[in-house]
């Protein structure tokens, strides 16, 4: 086995072992809670047919793992050639985080149920506590009286509206479990990835969609979803742009997943060499179709055409006007990023 595969397998093993340990712990806790709910359900009309979400999560993860394996991928680990170590693939991370979010929501519903139930019981318990303050004789009479009423009381601990409130939480829990049960890559991968990228403000990371997501989606047979991810990301970006941390619209990468590569009839060099008034529609990349900024974006041939409309003196004036300030910015940015392309605007 190659060193890369060993690294991938090692990380997968470590991650899986930790993850399934957490899931097992979660399942036991949920089991305890469910037993309590079932006991209460003997006296009141509660939703007791509750699934254990830990088990649902476990099964779903195994299902996802198999789908990834079929595509020749691992949901937990991949080898990063650039960094020379194994890390978690972005899609895998997005899915696992998404699945865990469902579980967290489900747990919250049970916790809300528990809080409500305890609050009601504490309130009902107040007369019993008050009884402790009265004389021993009166307390004994009260206890004897309560002995006869005990069967009746158990059914009446909760009022109907209180039972309804508790059932709402349990019903919500069941719905979330159902969503987790029906979770599938085709329906859920787009929001999962968008959520993950949004979480990290990673809209502007160069090549993130083209290099880290699109190839894996292709292997999973879901490459048709890449444009949808792109569109959703742009929408989310627009929503988030009010956030002062996200301000640099020029860094938003808009890969060309939707656009078909139209073959131009003429090479760029030929377009360069033709005088502007001799350029045909074919040179302009029209090929009988109307082009637009929205559909076609900005391509190299567009810039060639723009370049032909500018004369040498205007270029010289522009260089003189902006050169000094550009140089100052370049120095600052190079200090900051240590990135030097070796090219300047000349």
């Amino acid at each position, binding site marked *: 086995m190659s060193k890369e595969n060993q690294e991938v397998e090692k990380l997968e093993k470590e991650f899986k072992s930790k993850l399934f340990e957490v899931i097992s712990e979660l399942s036991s806790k949920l089991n305890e809670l469910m037993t309590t709910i079932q006991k209460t359900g003997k006296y009141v009309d509660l939703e007791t047919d509750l699934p254990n979400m830990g088990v649902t999560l476990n099964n779903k993860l195994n299902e996802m793992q198999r789908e990834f394996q079929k595509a020749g991928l691992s949901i937990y680990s991949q080898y990063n050639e650039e960094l020379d170590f194994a890390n978690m693939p972005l899609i895998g991370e997005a899915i696992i985080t998404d699945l865990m979010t469902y579980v967290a929501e489900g747990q919250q519903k049970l916790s809300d149920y528990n809080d409500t139930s305890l609050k009601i019981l504490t309130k009902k318990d107040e007369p019993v506590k008050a009884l402790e303050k009265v004389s021993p004789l009166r307390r004994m009479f009260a206890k004897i009286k309560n002995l006869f009423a005990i069967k009746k009381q158990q059914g009446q601990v909760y009022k109907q509206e209180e039972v309804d409130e508790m059932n709402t939480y349990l019903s919500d829990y069941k719905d979330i479990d159902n969503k987790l049960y029906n979770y599938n890559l085709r329906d859920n991968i787009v929001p999962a990835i968008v959520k993950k990228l949004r979480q990290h403000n990673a809209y502007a990371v160069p090549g993130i969609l083209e290099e880290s997501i699109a190839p894996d989606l292709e292997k999973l047979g879901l490459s048709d979803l890449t444009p949808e991810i792109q569109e959703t990301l742009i929408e989310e970006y627009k929503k988030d742009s009010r956030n002062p941390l996200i301000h640099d619209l020029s860094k938003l990468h808009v890969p060309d997943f939707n656009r078909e590569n139209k073959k131009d009839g003429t090479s760029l060099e030929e377009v360069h060499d033709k005088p502007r008034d001799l350029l045909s529609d074919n040179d302009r990349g029209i090929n009988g179709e109307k082009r637009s*900024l929205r559909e076609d974006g900005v391509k190299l041939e567009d810039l060639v055409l723009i370049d032909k409309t*500018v004369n040498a003196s205007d270029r010289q004036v522009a260089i003189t006007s902006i050169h000094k300030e550009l140089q100052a910015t370049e120095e600052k940015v190079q200090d900051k990023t240590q990135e030097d392309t070796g090219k300047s605007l000349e």
Partner: protein
Amino acid sequence: MTIAYQNALAEVDTILEFMSPELLHKIPNSFLEFIKQKKSKSYTINLDMELPLEEQDLLKETRTILSLIYRSYLCSSEQSRKLKIEDSMELKEKYSYQNLLKKSNKK
């Protein structure tokens, strides 16, 4: 920097949003940063999404900056060299003694 160039940088900044990532990657971050810093924040950009770049009603300065971006970062080095020669010939022609004399005679 003049207001005309600040406005042009605002237009350029918006136009770059429509550029394919392969092209955008070739433009140094320092230049993108420069555009961001120096562009006018108040200039209203008026791009028609249904028209191609060439048919947009762009400022003259915007066209000039786009031309410089193309020549400096996007075209091949051979093409860049060829274009530089063309420019120097054009400037030489424009500022030749004969042409300058022609202009002053017209006045």
